[in-house]
């Protein structure tokens, strides 16, 4: 057992764990954040997707010992305090989830996609999201929800720019 100092959702966390313990189980069993899900244990399904320094990673393939103390980990619980993230809202608007089990991972991937590509095409979405399996088959709605979130982000940033311009006058 070793002691690891982690930053999860902007909180300092101290964990005693074996070095090879995947972050998935550290997050779920040691830090008690249950939104990150176990799906396959092989990095094949994306249910366990978290962000490490803003990049999506499969937490089931990320040993705790590989995470630097300065590394910033974000889980589904960390993307907004009260379901106000634009992607979460789009997911509700489009009624994406069915069983919902894969959706934390889907949302974490979608947030990462929109951080790098503010206006993805269907093809961009398909390429980026192909690592996340949904057995209920919500893919069509995931596509629409990502487009909706992108449109909302665009109009929000547009109105921000407009406000800035107006205030500078």
């Amino acid at each position: 057992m070793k002691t690891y100092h982690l930053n999860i959702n902007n909180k300092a966390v101290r964990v005693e764990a074996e070095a090879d313990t995947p972050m998935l189980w550290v997050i779920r069993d040691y830090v008690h954040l249950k939104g990150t899900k176990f799906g396959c244990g092989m990095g094949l399904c994306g249910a366990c997707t978290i962000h490490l320094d803003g990049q999506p990673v499969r937490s089931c393939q990320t040993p705790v010992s590989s995470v630097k103390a300065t590394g910033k980990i974000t889980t589904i619980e960390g993307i907004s305090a009260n379901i106000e993230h634009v992607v979460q809202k789009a997911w509700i608007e489009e009624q994406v989830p069915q069983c919902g089990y894969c959706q934390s991972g889907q949302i974490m991937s979608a947030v990462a996609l929109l951080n790098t590509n503010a206006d993805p095409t269907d093809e961009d979405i398909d390429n980026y999201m192909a690592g996340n399996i949904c057995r209920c088959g919500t893919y069509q709605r995931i596509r629409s929800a990502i487009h909706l979130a992108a449109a909302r982000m665009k109009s929000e940033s547009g109105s921000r720019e407009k406000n800035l311009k107006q205030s500078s006058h």
Partner: protein
Amino acid sequence: MSKINNIHVNRRDFLRYTGLSGAALVLGIAPANADESVGISNLSLLEEGHSLSPYVIIEKSGKITLFSTRPEMGQGVYQSIPALIAEELEISQDQYTVKQTGGEKQFGGAQFAGGSFSVRSDYFALRKVGAAAREMLISAASRQWNVPESECYAENARIFHRPSGKSAGYGELAESASTLEVPANPRLKDAKDFKLLGKSVKRQDIPLKVSGRAVFGIDVEIPGMVYASVERCPVFGATLKDYDKSASLKVPGVENVVEVEKVFGVYKTKGVAVIAGNYWSALKGRRALKINWDYQGKEYFNSQDYAASLRKLAEKEGVVDAAVGDFDKGFAESTKKIEAFYETPFVSHSTMEAMNCTAHWKEEGKLEVWASTQVPSDTMRDLTGRYNLKEENVLIHTCFNGGGFGRRLAIDFIIEAVNLSKSIKKPVKLIWTREDDMQSGPFRPPTFSSLKGGISGDGKLLAFQHKVISPSIMAFLNPDFDKTKLDGNMTEGISHQKYEIPNMKNLFVYSDIHVPLLWWRSVTSSTLAFSHECFIDELAHTAGKDPMAFRLQMLTKASDARRVLQKLKEVSGWDVPMAEGRGRGVAQWEFFAGLGGQVIEVTRQSDKSVKIDKVFAVIDLGTVVNPDTVKAQVEGAVVMGITAAIKNGITFANGKTEQSNFHDNPVLRINEMPPVEVHILAEGGENIKGVGEPGLPPVAPALANAIFAATGIRVRKMPFDIDNLTS
């Protein structure tokens, strides 16, 4: 409806269960008489010894609780079932909380989700409960205000007096309403006045599911809990010989290694469980186990031999499923005759949440269980019987199911977890790995089909025969099952399509197998629709007819199936010719769960490959509760249907499952999903059909028929690789 089968629950038991103190209006369903017709009852007037399923509780504080006996596994019942009560009670979705039942006897023996039954079973019964509560609250208000009931109405969880404008909240009226007789025939609302039913209202479980807050079985944590992973024999039918646990016990975090029994169908098998303070340690400890199994001769079993045995069995006559006219005579008199043989594979359910259960065997005779399960009632029945426990000493928490698809109709993983907790005397969370989940089964069985058809001189289907050769789910689940008789589960739908065929004789040949089997979304219809509807297509081409016209020609009488095909013809633009290299296929299927049909369009990419362009789906429902949920279910069924059609199934070699995870038993991914356009036929009325399953059976045949149209390749074996097609 009549499935609600209450046993005794008295008022004291009920109050203890709900934790209610003080007066409240509690309304539920109680069997009115011996024929199991149901009436609505009021708990406070219930005679001692009479029973009640309390679906509505209105407390003096104004708090409203609605109970749902239907586990949520993605199909949307968390919204649609309570909405049946809420509609009639005139409350909005933010004015009540939903409580999921856990097999308690007061809610009867039909607490389950499966067979696309939930909404159609509860539709009128729960509306009646809501309507009765509304009328009692109106009655209480009219007495309190000394005004006629006709001047009062319910809205937004309040009763209003129309002339004076005064009003009272449900909580204020609950106590006096609870003293009133329940109206025998409460008036149900007219559909035109619905605020929730028939509307695409938002599901209340979705905010929980986009924020990581929904509690699935795997998310449960209880004080003092340990984790377990179990090594089971990979060869079906093998037994545990001996094992060495010394290396496992040296793994840091591992606390204990014990044998544990799993019970399912005809099997009672022992595995070796590693118990640890955290799950990762349990997994590592499991890898360090050294186990010797006794394979019992089952290590020679493989898929090729099994498939060959099914083909051989096709030579048998079989038992009759149904017969119309004289098949042999009709076939002999036919001008054109064709025969074909179709094959389908075993498939896994592969729910995203692998099987898991948290169990706490407490001091003498008390048990608490947390699980993602489709069957709270069966779980209660089984556990109380198996361990000789009183029902009031067993508490089952029905969690959100991370996918069901039929897999969670079995409770093998629950029994395994309870056995473990009983053995180690601690609360334990048992989590199956993805490999455990995919390799252990149970699987949807394959069906092989031998088909014959004859066309008359004027191009009509004169004689038709569908012989099914398959193992039997019921024979696996029940050792006393009579294998010499017809198993109607395995011939599902083949004799009940609406096609008017003058001479038909359908048959069944049973095949033995030792691999665990279970129902899977749309069950046998998921394979039989493929062989049946593809062969109908073959017959259409043999007759020189358009496949849509050929089907409609056999549906001269008005029927739901005819309407589905006509709708498909219209929405898909069936009569608009397609460009060279493109093709469309059609299929429809009617079975226990309901009725759906699809047209699928494909484009030829090369001589041997196609791309799926578009799916037009029609589902026939009678009455719809949440159209958006219905669309979601059909979209999802199409995805699952395409996976089953074109991705690897499950195969066996050396007695073991060959596939282990999503790399070798893949499911459809987002980049492979075609656009799906869903059309709902809901003409109203009391003939309500199911939603969860009917979107699946037409997928494979519609796709295979489209492939034939585009490429001339006739696919007769599932799965088929659309990138490398062979006939």
